[in-house]
């Protein structure tokens, strides 16, 4: 890392929200002036700080190629991945780095994501096939198998849910969603989009089992379509669309349950 620093004396200032639960009452900003290297991502800069200036700086990172979802943080007010945010986009202005909003801060840039994981699990994000589906008779036909032994899924059927399967669980959308801050019980964009992903999969029969969570007051109905979640999504998952498609579906089901009251009462 250090040997990558070219010999020039340009620097950039990083303001980082620091919080050590063992010594600090509340988070405060710490300022670091570091060498400016044009190729550096914010992760490179944080690594430099940790290696050379302050080894106590805590943050999560791993793949550095925007696919593991570890390094979400708020940079100059916008939730972004540290690995695909580059110093050159800000230089010579300073950068202000905070942990993701709407999560408790564990330490420095690390947030407590356990609640997020619980919500992710709550939507039953796995294929529930005809055998597993217990709540209601499947509405869809199980697709045929090909000679390979896989379920038939035409490119168009794959295309239906593909976008919603791209989520890397980086939690930027939770940071972007004001409803998340206003109602921490909200299941939230990523988890609801994941449930939707399985509902749209032609191999899945579990939509009814997911209804309880998805159509709950704290499910899609806590969303007011601010839409910023989809804007910050690094993988174009468009969770806002997933949520609002479910509102439309929910409204339709609600109307149907009045027209055909017996259908829902299995």
């Amino acid at each position: 890392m250090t040997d990558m620093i070219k010999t020039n004396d340009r620097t950039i200032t990083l303001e980082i929200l620091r919080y050590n639960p063992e010594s600090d009452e509340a988070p405060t900003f710490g300022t670091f002036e570091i060498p400016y290297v044009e190729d550096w991502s914010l992760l490179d800069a944080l690594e430099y700080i940790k290696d050379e200036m302050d080894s106590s700086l805590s943050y999560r990172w791993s793949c550095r190629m925007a696919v593991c979802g570890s390094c979400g943080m708020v940079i100059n007010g916008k939730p972004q991945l540290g690995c695909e945010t580059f110093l050159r986009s800000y230089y010579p202005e300073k950068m202000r780095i905070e942990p993701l909003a709407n999560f408790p801060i564990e330490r420095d840039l690390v947030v407590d994501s356990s609640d997020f994981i619980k919500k992710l699990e709550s939507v039953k994000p796995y294929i529930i096939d005809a055998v597993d589906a217990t709540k209601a008779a499947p509405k869809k036909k199980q697709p045929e198998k090909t000679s390979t032994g896989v379920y038939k899924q035409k490119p168009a059927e794959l295309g239906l849910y593909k976008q919603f399967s791209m989520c890397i669980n980086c939690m930027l959308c939770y940071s972007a969603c004001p409803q998340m801050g206003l109602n921490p019980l909200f299941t939230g964009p990523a988890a609801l989009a994941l449930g939707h992903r399985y509902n749209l999969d032609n191999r899945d029969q579990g939509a009814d089992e997911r209804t309880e969570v998805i159509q709950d007051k704290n499910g899609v109905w806590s969303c007011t379509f601010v839409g910023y979640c989809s804007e910050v999504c690094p993988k174009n998952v468009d969770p806002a669309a997933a949520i609002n498609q479910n509102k439309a579906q929910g409204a339709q089901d609600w109307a149907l349950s009045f027209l055909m009251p017996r259908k829902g009462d299995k």
Partner: protein
Amino acid sequence: MQVVKADIIVVGAGGAGLRAAIAAAEKNPNLDIALISKVYPMRSHTVAAEGGSAGVVQSHDSLENHFIDTVAGGDWLCDQDVVDYFVANSTEEMIQLEHWGCPWSRKDDGDVNVRAFGGMKIERTWFAADKSGFHMLHTLFQTSIKYPNIKRYDEFYTTDLIIEDGRAQGVTAIQINSGAPHTFLGKAVVFATGGSGRTFRFNTNGAIVTGDGHAMALRAGATLRDMEFVQYHPTGLPGSGVLMTEGCRGEGGILLNKDGYRYLQDYGLGPETPVGQPKNKHMELGPRDKLSQAFWQEQRKGRTIETPLGDAVHLDLRHLGEKKLMERLPLICSLAKNYMGVDPVHQPVPVRPAVHYTMGGIRANLDCSTSIPGLFAVGECASNGMHGANRLGSNSLAETVVFGKVAGESAIEFARHATQSDQTRLLDHANANLDRIEKMRNANGTEKASHIRHDMVKTMETTLGIYRIGEEMQEGVDKITELRERFKNVKVEDKSKVFNTELLQAFELESSLTVAQGMAIGALNRKESRGAHQRLDGFEKRDDENFLKHSLITLNDKGEATLSYEDVNVTRFQPAARTYGAAAEKGEQK
């Protein structure tokens, strides 16, 4: 100290660990499985695999073909029974993943599609665009949620094995968010801790790929095998090392030197194939070791392209057209744009080889058992002999699930017969391990861990590169030994408990140094050239007489690495010249 009791303990929740946990959970729903990972499962490095996962599926292909490609690709250092088992079971696992929801790319008729890959005679690489590992990992993680007897311990850093009565019976770990020490007790332990590419400076690996499992197993008395074989992937982005998948070449991408010449034809991979018509096992579809070596040769001849981030060659994808690139290689396009400022639709992408995979690992058998009873190893951390001296692309994702299942079932089977030793003795062991954690936290020496790490990765890069020379490797061995000495005097400045990543990095560095030493010693003593281990100092040829052998590393009583060898399990495919391109065709005609 908190004690967690389970029937089996799986360490690592990437592709292999998750598959092992699911297999165990399915095999016996009444047993408790503790799945421990130092990161949330979907952060595991399986996520970064791009190209795909191999499984024979086309009617004109055969298991024998896959077997031959794999063994020859591994330069005959493969355990042939293991490869047989692997090729016979990988397709089934790909289908299983499909049933669990993995969004494999499809053909128009709804069947799965396969793509060409380096060193593979026939297309058999299942893929999900260029995010195959991502989709496999998320499918496995999400499926694992279905099983109530899999209890996850996310963000727990495992520091040591607990060995009692000669058996692995647990691990000690730090709960990262609280710093609280935990002891996990079980009847069997599965290690699925991944590779150790972070011992090198320029690599395609994530921060977490530090060889923790290798080092823990070694310290506990297990054997590491074939550690000198480190795979350089021929196409990483200069500077960052971000991976440009082999799928790029599988789809028809070509490699050009600074004169716009397809140099691979000069290195036994020709004749030149028409642009846009990739031919299996020719040119760009040669194996990774050969391609990386060709780069090195070109660089030496001054025919590579100078970039501000170092020498590179061009990966040209322009002829594939925007539509195909967006359908098949969307991630690659966005990565190239973000990290290089290059749009593959309109410009060739500068690439160079980067450390990608450790073929070696904890010595394991076909059933994933290791030399320590009750300890099973699977995935990149293991060496069951699948990959030999050079792994073929798309064999490792398949390996994680094929052998993940085996490991899970083996561990359950072992646990069924095993009884736990006396708990007070186990906890005594655990306490000794926990002392080590406190000792590390309170380490008050003068050496900065980050600086030792910088020295390590540089040493590994310069002395154990694509081509190796005895003198340099000796230098590497000496330097790593010196760094291990320096590490004894390390200082951990951060004494806090909550999310103390400096402490974790110190443990990781300790692991990496252990692994690095194994790699260097193995390499120095392998006086031949085979697969990913290529020498320039009079040992340019493969030497089957003396070195058709696995290298073994163990620690002696003093904690020093010692080297020995064992025979390779060759069943029906006898070592022959390893050829690609026209030479291989000629060989087949004979």
